[in-house]
């Protein structure tokens, strides 16, 4: 690891002050919470902060569920949220996405906020042996375009970056209209999760709309989808402890065999957690017949562009949407 000064502030205001300095000089600071991604990035010299600011013990870790919806403190661990009774009963999509993520050990360490802000698994981003990665070294180029890109994105890409956002949790949450409460040196604000992550465009190293010093304090999920039938389908190269090749998060408001409303988001294919409103519109009022589901799911491919090795994802993600709806619809 590159050497850093480790700050262990006693309160959040001090931590935010350290973080705010980061944006104003060329000696970057980074926050660390659960550490499961940050320690990997440090070990591999992907991130080389001069100052590491610990958020341990400074952020809310409570999980509250009520008539307004669900509120997840940013420091709640993946394991705590996945096993919470209200999450399991009313928002099982979240639990399912979490239990299909990482390993039991990492789920005991990793936090909600950190999960949303984890960095891409693009092998060229993670391996400093490759000089070209616009996300790691702005302006250096993209090794994945024209390289090994089976794992890369087909939606939301630019000619600068085709890296996938790796979180399963974020895919489930964006389907459920979640928002994040952001705390920063200037105060508090709320950001819809769908707007938290930026498309890479011409600055793929800037991944979110968070300003220097800002942290995610909590995640909120409105109650509109509570109790809907849902399924998180994760297609991956091994049965457990692996990132998604393609994932589909689906929540359905059913009236017998007919869909009143649907929420659909995709993982493993987008440069950010990818909601597909055009699929949702096509599903409203549709039956669960395979032909109806297939024509709605085909709309997920709008704007998709393969880069060679990952061309298969465009059809696979449509099939994943159909399968996820069928499984959700079949739940008793």
């Amino acid at each position: 690891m590159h050497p850093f000064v480790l700050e262990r502030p006693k309160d959040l205001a001090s931590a935010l002050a350290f973080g705010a300095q980061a944006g104003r000089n060329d000696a970057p600071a980074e926050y660390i919470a659960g550490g499961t991604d940050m320690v990997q990035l440090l070990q591999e010299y992907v991130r080389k902060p001069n100052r590491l600011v610990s958020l341990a013990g400074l952020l809310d870790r409570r999980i509250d569920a009520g008539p307004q919806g669900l509120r997840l403190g940013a420091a709640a661990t993946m394991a705590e949220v996945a096993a919470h009774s209200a999450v399991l009963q009313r928002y099982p999509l979240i639990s399912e996405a979490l239990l299909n993520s990482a390993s039991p050990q990492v789920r005991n360490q990793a936090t909600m906020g950190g999960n949303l802000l984890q960095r891409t698994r693009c092998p060229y981003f993670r391996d400093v042996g490759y000089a070209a990665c616009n996300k790691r070294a702005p302006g250096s180029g993209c090794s994945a375009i024209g390289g090994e890109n089976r794992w890369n994105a087909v939606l939301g890409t630019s000619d600068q970056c085709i890296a996938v956002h790796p979180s399963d949790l974020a895919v489930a949450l964006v389907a459920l209209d979640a928002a994040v409460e952001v705390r920063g040196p200037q105060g508090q604000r709320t950001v819809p999760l769908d707007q938290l992550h930026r498309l890479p465009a011409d600055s793929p190293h800037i991944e979110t709309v968070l300003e220097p010093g800002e942290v995610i304090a909590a995640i909120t999920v409105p109650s509109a989808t509570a109790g809907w039938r849902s399924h998180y389908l994760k297609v991956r190269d091994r049965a457990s402890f692996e990132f998604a090749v393609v994932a589909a998060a689906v929540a359905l408001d059913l009236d017998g065999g007919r869909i009143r409303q649907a929420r659909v988001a995709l993982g493993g294919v987008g440069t950010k957690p990818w909601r597909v409103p055009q699929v949702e519109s096509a599903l409203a009022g549709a039956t669960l017949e395979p032909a109806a589901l297939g024509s709605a799911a085909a709309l997920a491919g709008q704007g998709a562009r393969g880069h060679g090795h990952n061309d298969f994802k465009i059809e696979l993600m449509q099939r994943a949407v159909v399968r996820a709806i069928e499984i959700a619809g079949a739940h008793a």
Partner: protein
Amino acid sequence: MGNEDSSEGRSSGDLTRRDLLKLTAAAGGTWFAEGLLPEPALSAMAQAADATQAPLKVLLRVNGVEHRLMLDPRTTLLDALREQLHLKGSKKGCGLGQCGACTVLLDGKRVKSCLSLAALVEGREITTIEGLAQGDELHPLQTAFIERDAFQCGYCTSGQIMAGVACITEGHAGSAQEIRDWMSGNLCRCGAYDHIVAAIQDAAKATSSQRGG
């Protein structure tokens, strides 16, 4: 650490090796001066000196015993256990959270000790494989691993056992399939998985019959 070999980790700087040894000795470090560290690590420490990075006082509670340590802030929990406390049961496989050989319990929950900085788990209760037996009496899962021959080379074994103990106490040892899913964070390159699953099933039964009795 193998990662120190990364070209980006090297920095020549102006400090000589002799300057560095004086400097680190003055800062209270002892482990630097043993001649065990490769040049890249020494270069990293020269950078450390540039960044005015001071060793941190860290209190670690391991297997019921408190230890007061002076640690480089970069020290992971795993490295603190192995290199400072000489508890070498926890193994360093990948150092990136992928293999599970470093699994320990933190406040009773299984974690990958290579992914935690030691200074950030200060005061929390850490249990390693060395703390599992009660005196001469092995934990039921340790016994089951021996009876089921649940290892070949043994490198992953302490991590498997620590994860397996947690798997049982969490209530995730109900079936072979459930065990396989909940043990997926621990790799065994010898492929002793069938025996590991059987050992966990044995120990889970022994534990539940103890509870029932």
